[in-house]
């Protein structure tokens, strides 16, 4: 991933080569006829120190919005919702074994799973935010969290 595809918003890195779910803070990157899914930097920031992650196993059929897995931090269990519809092809076993990977490299080695989308890969991104709109969306989300006192300034 080249530097040109990443924007910096305050201290957060936001790659522009993928699409984002507006409220769940997951990302989706099309890779041929598959899509890779992960948590974005704000999702990781708000989760805290991740202790455990589980994901639905390969072969699971997911609709957009279905629970694709869950995370635990500070004894809090939160569900992870799939940003797109498709079948789980692969789960990042390394991230499950060591959830710190997700915190340290959420856009790279800390990806969560790979799906075979039920629609054409280019169409699954409909409803997600991508391209230049990402910058304004992320800044607005960061501002919203800060107003709530949820992210340190």
């Amino acid at each position, binding site marked *: 991933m080249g530097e040109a595809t990443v924007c910096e918003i305050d201290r957060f890195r936001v790659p522009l080569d993928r699409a984002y779910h507006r409220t769940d803070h997951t990302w989706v990157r099309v890779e041929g006829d598959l899509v890779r899914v992960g948590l974005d930097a704000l999702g990781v*920031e*708000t*989760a*805290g120190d991740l*202790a*455990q*992650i*589980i994901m639905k196993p390969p072969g699971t059929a997911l609709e957009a919005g279905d629970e694709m897995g*869950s995370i*635990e*931090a*500070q*004894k*809090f*269990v*939160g*569900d992870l919702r799939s940003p797109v519809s498709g079948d789980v092809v692969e789960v990042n076993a390394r991230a*499950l*074994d060591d959830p710190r990977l997700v915190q340290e490299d959420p856009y790279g080695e800390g990806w969560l799973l790979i799906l075979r989308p039920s629609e054409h890969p280019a169409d699954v991104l409909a409803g997600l935010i991508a391209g230049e709109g990402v910058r304004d969306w992320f800044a607005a989300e960061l501002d919203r*969290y800060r107003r*709530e*006192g*949820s*992210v340190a300034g």
Partner: protein
Amino acid sequence: MLDGLRLLDLGWVSAVRSQTVWHAIAERMRPSDRPVLCLCSPTDPYVSIGYHRRLDEIDLDACERRGLPVFRRRVGGGPVYCDPSQLFFQLIVPARGWPAVMDRAWERAMGPAVDAFRALGVKAELVEGNDLVAEGRKISGTGAARIGDALVFVGNVIFEFDHAAMADVLRVPAGAKREVERLMRRYLAPVREAAGREIDRVEAIGEIVDAYAAAFGGARRSTLADEETASARVLDALFSSRDWVGSDRPPVPPRVKIRAGVTVLLLGSSWVSVTDGVVDRVALLNGWVPAPGLRGKLQRALSGRPVEPKALARAVRDACGTWDRSEELVNAIVAGYRGGA
């Protein structure tokens, strides 16, 4: 604007229902609903395991011997022993509008519980996000989850605690069980001990309700809706099912956390207990004994040392000179503690 809480004081319910009822309330909660404060105690003892934890952390033989069913809850944390001498309280709120960062979320949810304990005469504080402690001793077991459109925060008031039962149901070596029990007696305080006086259920409920009512703009007594009861019945069966309880989970680091900062690290059949960053007791067996006659010397050398690589390496070197597993032992203690303190 605060609309007040819906208060459900359910009294005594079956073991499984003491878990499923608040999961059911959360499942049924809509974004526009009022927050719910639910109170209940189980009629019988049981073991509850956290959503992400492995069933093999529990000594199922010990559970069977003691007649304890095992249920998997949807909230986080490790295996816990629950019995009728505990009062469970749950705050269930619509997720929307609640702080997204966990420290803030815990603070808002458990702030009233801290106030309630203080009103009972307990010097309660919330440490490391979610641990309720008083003068260095844990006073409540906590956990939380997002369930549907709701967030659930759970805690308990412990009137009496069966430390031996809690240690016994953990699948750890016999020596480690005794150490877990010893540390729990020291670092887990029933409310009577924390307050320095007898506190009964009625008084505890009164203070909890008052504290949460003050924080949420009042509390109105309510009863379970039919659909909530129906959902709880469905969950009764699920939570008791072999598939749910035995769900496959990734391995967790081998340790038992007593409270924030107090941990028993498991190294095979050996164990090391750590209290607030300092090695407490050590029991090294099999491969962790450098040479005949050095076991006691090494154990004594490690005890009292801070959990820092240099300090521990020096202790090992002083006790047994050059040893090819020295670095491995030091790393296991340091990584085990830092990962679970």
